[in-house]
């Protein structure tokens, strides 16, 4: 201490050598002394002065100190002093001691010395190699010095460290140091090292930084941990933010799931009441930012999607939603949680679906979305929280048609339920509330519910609002226009204008609704044509111009007053094209617009900053160009119309093609179905084919058998028939002969009769005739009887024949049926042409056979018919004969009668003769004539009686 006093005392006295002198002397001693102890003392003294006389020590002692580091590195003590001294020189951080000392050279002093230090790149290498020394007195100040250097000149130091082989790896190894103080300072060092340097970030990650850091966070108690946790999280954030390679590595290394436990809130109600420490709030914020870094909308799409998926499966999203609905969470943490949930669900349908299903533990339980929206349209809630809710709502609806329709549904008259608070009710309430910020929030929320969704745009047109009692309901669109015309705050109008523009863009029906009220277009014209106003007023005018442009672009020309052409004309005449485009460009030029289109997250600090919505900005960017093109003078109205028409045509063509494709799709599907069924059928028919080939074989056999039997039968039956025919012919001849005989008989009888008549006429006694006739009749009767019996026999024969023919025919028909079945079966097998060909050949052969059989059958039938005919004729003949016979009988009867008559006559005459004889006798005359005859006659009479 004497040594010190020697140098320091005079200074304290105030008139003694300046600090510079002292330092100079010490430097001289440190560099020239041969004794290590002397040098050590000198360096220690320099270190002691380094804070007070930063400039002096820095300018005079740096080289010496570096030399000490190089030469005396074996002595940890002197190395430690040198490092400490350098650290003090470089550090810009104020210490409690030097409060009263004005810093010469200002804040840049540290940077300037750092610049001098790294001029020799070896110096950094020297420090890095010093890290290999385990001694705390060396390692710790080295870490601190490097951190200070990095803080001062980050870019240069990063390059120096990168160039040094294994430089980054050496620094990474410090995280494994068992001495916590070194590990913690290494965290600070790495935080500085990785700032804005993707390659170093990657190397650090490669050196297992993720695992180590997550381990440390876990060990230190996660969100309840201290500043070390904060440092770890900061470093993790450094490594991941904007570094897609590291994000990918983080995800691939399955580290996402280790984030979930970070968000497990303490369920102990007692501790919850104590509130959150400032450190916990900070830690929580960083953890949430870590999650957001992985799913940021500015990350590569694929990566974000993958991370979102992981966060759902590992329960991270669920945990975050729990925080949303938990009580006692500080507002800013809640806000950041909402923002985080927003990005975890954004554009990922599964996560959006989960979010929609989350219920708040209120009574009655309400969907989390509704509870959040309640906060959004509540003026009393913090502004950033309301922004976050809107962001969350936007993210929920982003690329989520189902979600969009769910929200719009709650606005439609059919589903309006008065008892529960719905999202639609809240949005309408916000839209028409007195708070202009609520108007803006609600308008933007609604805008996102219909953005890029044609169906919902049209659905929303159906929304009717009950105004005051007794007045007819007003459509939502009209009510928006009414609010617009009433003026009001800028944010209200901007919100409504953005909603209207989004609504009407690409939706002709909405444009038609808008134009239906004739007051709307004049209002827009008046807005656009007014020339004064501040920045925000100009933006409103620009939006009005945009809306007008949409009326031109998506006009269906159904409205007589405001057609595409007429609005164009009004714009040209009343505003002028140049002024119109100027107004439009006001929007894109505005700072608020550039901010909004950059990223979806609304990172606004104050309510006055709220202007444009991200989704709307994108629409504006897309449509603005079309509007200018549609209005540009080179495009006369016809052209633009034609273009529009062309566009429509194209659309229709595309639609046609789409339809066609759809049809073809349907056809394709049908065909595929058919193919399938056909294949099935093919299999079945294949089986059938096999079966039927067998069947055919069987049938062929049967056929052959049948043919044989048939052949035998037909030949024999033919013979039989011929014989029969012959017999029949013979019989016929016989019968005709008999007929002839009978004819002759009848002829004879007739002649006899004639003779008899003649005799009767001649009053002859023709007794012989009497005797003859009965006998002849008997003969006739006999022949007739014979004929009848013969006929009967013949009939029997014929019927036998008939039954036989019938049998043959039925056999034939069954054969035919079988054949038909076969041919049907073979038709089914059309696919298998070869087999089917052979089959059909066989079938044809069979059919031929069948045909020939049929023909034969036909012939036989014909023959049979002939026979039947003949029989018929015969029967005819027989019947004719019978009639003749009956005639003859009749004649016979008449003859008998005549005979009797004649006999009676004869008897009369006899009696007359007798009387005449008696009279003659009485008269005395002898009567002698014809006695014999008389006697005979008497005899005869006696016989007869």
């Amino acid at each position, binding site marked *: 201490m004497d040594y010190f006093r020697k140098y320091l005392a005079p200074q304290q006295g105030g008139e003694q050598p300046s600090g510079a002198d002292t330092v100079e002397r010490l430097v001289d001693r440190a560099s020239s002394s041969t004794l290590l102890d002397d040098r050590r003392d000198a360096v220690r003294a320099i270190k002691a002065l380094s804070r007070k006389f930063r400039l002096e020590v820095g300018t005079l002692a740096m080289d010496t100190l570096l030399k000490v580091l190089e030469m005396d590195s074996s002595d940890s003590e002197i190395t430690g002093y040198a490092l400490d001294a350098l650290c003090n020189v470089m550090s810009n951080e104020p210490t409690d001691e030097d409060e009263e000392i004005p810093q010469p050279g200002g804040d840049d002093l540290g940077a300037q010395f750092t610049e001098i230090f790294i001029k020799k790149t070896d110096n950094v290498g020297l420090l890095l190699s010093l890290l290999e020394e*385990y001694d705390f007195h060396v390692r710790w100040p080295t870490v601190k010095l490097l951190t200070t250097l990095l803080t001062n000149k980050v870019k240069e130091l990063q390059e120096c460290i990168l160039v040094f082989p294994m430089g*980054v790896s050496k620094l990474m*190894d410090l*995280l494994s140091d068992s001495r916590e103080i070194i590990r913690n300072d290494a965290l600070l060092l790495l935080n500085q090292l990785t700032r804005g340097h993707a390659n170093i970030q990657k190397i650090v990650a490669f050196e297992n930084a993720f695992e180590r850091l997550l*381990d440390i966070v876990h060990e230190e108690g996660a969100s309840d941990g201290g500043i070390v946790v904060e440092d770890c999280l900061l470093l993790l954030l450094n490594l991941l933010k904007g570094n897609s*390679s590291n994000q990918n*590595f983080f995800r*691939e290394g399955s580290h996402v799931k280790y984030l979930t436990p970070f968000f497990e809130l303490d369920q102990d109600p007692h501790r919850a009441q104590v509130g959150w420490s400032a450190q916990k709030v900070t830690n929580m914020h960083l953890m949430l930012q870590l999650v957001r870094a992985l799913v940021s909308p500015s990350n590569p799409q694929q990566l974000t999607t993958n991370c979102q998926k992981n966060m759902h499966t590992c329960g991270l999203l669920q945990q975050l939603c729990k925080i949303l609905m938990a009580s006692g969470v500080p507002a800013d943490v809640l806000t950041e949680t909402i923002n985080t949930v927003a990005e975890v669900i954004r554009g990922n349908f599964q996560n959006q679906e989960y979010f929609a299903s989350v219920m708040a533990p209120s009574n009655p339980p309400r969907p989390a979305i509704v509870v959040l929206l309640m906060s959004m349209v509540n003026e009393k809630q913090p502004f950033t929280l309301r922004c976050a809710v809107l962001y969350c709502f936007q993210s929920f609806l982003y690329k989520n048609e189902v979600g969009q329709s769910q929200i719009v549904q709650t606005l439609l008259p059919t589903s309006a339920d008065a008892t529960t608070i719905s999202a639609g009710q809240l949005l309408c309430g916000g839209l028409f509330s007195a708070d202009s910020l609520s108007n803006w929030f609600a308008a933007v929320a609604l805008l996102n519910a219909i953005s890029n969704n044609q169906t919902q745009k049209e659905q929303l047109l159906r929304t009717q609002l009950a105004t005051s009692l007794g007045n007819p309901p007003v459509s939502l669109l009209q009510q928006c226009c009414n609010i617009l015309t009433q003026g009001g705050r800028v944010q209200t109008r901007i919100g409504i204008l953005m909603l209207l523009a989004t609504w009407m863009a690409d939706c002709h029906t909405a444009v038609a609704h808008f134009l239906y009220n004739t007051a709307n277009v004049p209002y827009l014209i008046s807005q656009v044509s007014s020339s004064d106003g501040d920045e925000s007023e100009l933006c409103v005018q620009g939006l009005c111009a945009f809306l007008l442009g949409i009326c031109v672009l998506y006009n269906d020309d159904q409205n007589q007053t405001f057609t595409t052409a007429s609005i164009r004309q009004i714009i040209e005449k009343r505003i002028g094209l140049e002024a119109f485009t100027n107004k439009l460009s006001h929007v894109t030029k505005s700072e608020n617009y550039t901010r909004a289109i950059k990223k979806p997250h609304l990172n606004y600090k104050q309510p006055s900053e709220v202007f444009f919505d991200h989704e709307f900005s994108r629409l504006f960017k897309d449509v603005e160009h079309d509007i200018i093109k549609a209005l540009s003078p080179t495009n006369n109205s016809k052209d633009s119309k034609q273009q529009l028409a062309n566009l429509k045509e194209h659309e229709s063509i595309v639609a046609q093609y789409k339809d066609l494709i759809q049809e073809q799709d349907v056809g394709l599907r049908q065909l595929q179905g058919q193919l399938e069924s056909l294949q099935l059928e093919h299999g079945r028919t294949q089986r059938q084919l096999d079966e039927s080939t067998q069947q055919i074989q069987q049938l062929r056999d049967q056929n052959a058998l049948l043919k044989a039997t048939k052949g035998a039968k037909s030949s024999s039956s033919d013979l039989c028939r011929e014989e029969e025919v012959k017999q029949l012919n013979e019989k016929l001849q016989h019968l005709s002969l008999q007929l002839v005989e009978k004819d002759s008989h009848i002829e004879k009888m007739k002649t006899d009769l004639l003779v008899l008549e003649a005799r009767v006429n001649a009053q002859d006694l023709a007794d012989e005739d009497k005797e003859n006739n009965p006998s002849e009749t008997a003969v006739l009767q006999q022949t007739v009887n014979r004929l009848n019996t013969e006929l009967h026999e013949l009939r029997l024969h014929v019927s036998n024949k008939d039954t036989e023919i019938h049998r043959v025919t039925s056999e034939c028909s069954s054969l035919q049926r079988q054949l038909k079945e076969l041919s049907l079966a073979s038709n089914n097998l059309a696919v298998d042409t070869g087999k089917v060909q052979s089959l059909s050949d066989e079938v044809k052969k069979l059919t031929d056979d069948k045909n020939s059989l049929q023909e034969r059958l036909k012939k036989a039938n014909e023959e049979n018919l002939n026979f039947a005919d003949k029989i018929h004729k015969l029967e005819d003949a027989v019947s004719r004969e019978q009639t003749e016979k009956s005639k003859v009988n009749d004649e016979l009867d008449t003859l008998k009668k005549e005979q009797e008559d004649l006999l009676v006559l004869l008897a009369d005459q006899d009696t007359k003769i007798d009387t005449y004889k008696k009279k003659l006798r009485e008269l005395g005359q002898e009567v002698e004539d014809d006695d014999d005859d008389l006697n005979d006659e008497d005899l005869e009479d006696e016989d007869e009686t």
Partner: protein
Amino acid sequence: MSYAYLFKYIIIGDTGVGKSCLLLQFTDKRFQPVHDLTIGVEFGARMISIDGKQIKLQIWDTAGQESFRSITRSYYRGAAGALLVYDITRRDTFNHLTTWLEDARQHSNSNMVIMLIGNKSDLEARRDVKKEEGEAFAREHGLIFMETSAKTAANVEEAFINTAKEIYQKIQDGVFDINNEANGIKIGPQHSPSNPSMPSGGGNAGPSGNCC
């Protein structure tokens, strides 16, 4: 997602020899004819299986350009395997192998498995380096050798998997200290004997503290 081992690979070699294409073919099974210069290092990963064991490969594809050499060097130490790639249609890329190998041997741990790869074997007509030369070089320096085509995917799988097999064999032989993650090998979470409540295997403090 679970694995028995995790191996870290690096791919090194002159610029334009097809390192990124090899990785893309291995991880995504596709070929990209036009590829930008790799800036620094890119990361890719795939799961393979050896002996029925799932092995996760984490592969860092490095930039071949000289200006990125210092960055590339930082990856040697932590890698268990390296694919040293040259282009069979460009002799200079073959001639530079010695430099690459020296660099790798200097900065890596001595057990790192190096696979020599002659890429672009589909361009037989433009061949400038005979297969025998590659084989001879590999023999001389104790490397495994293979000719591949990132375009046709020929031998690409084999190159990565054979390297993994070699590492796996070295583990079985006890050459690698699997508990030192700095070697580029990690035991899978379910195989790790360390505290199961920890997110990942230990090694954050203590034993390795006095190693340097």
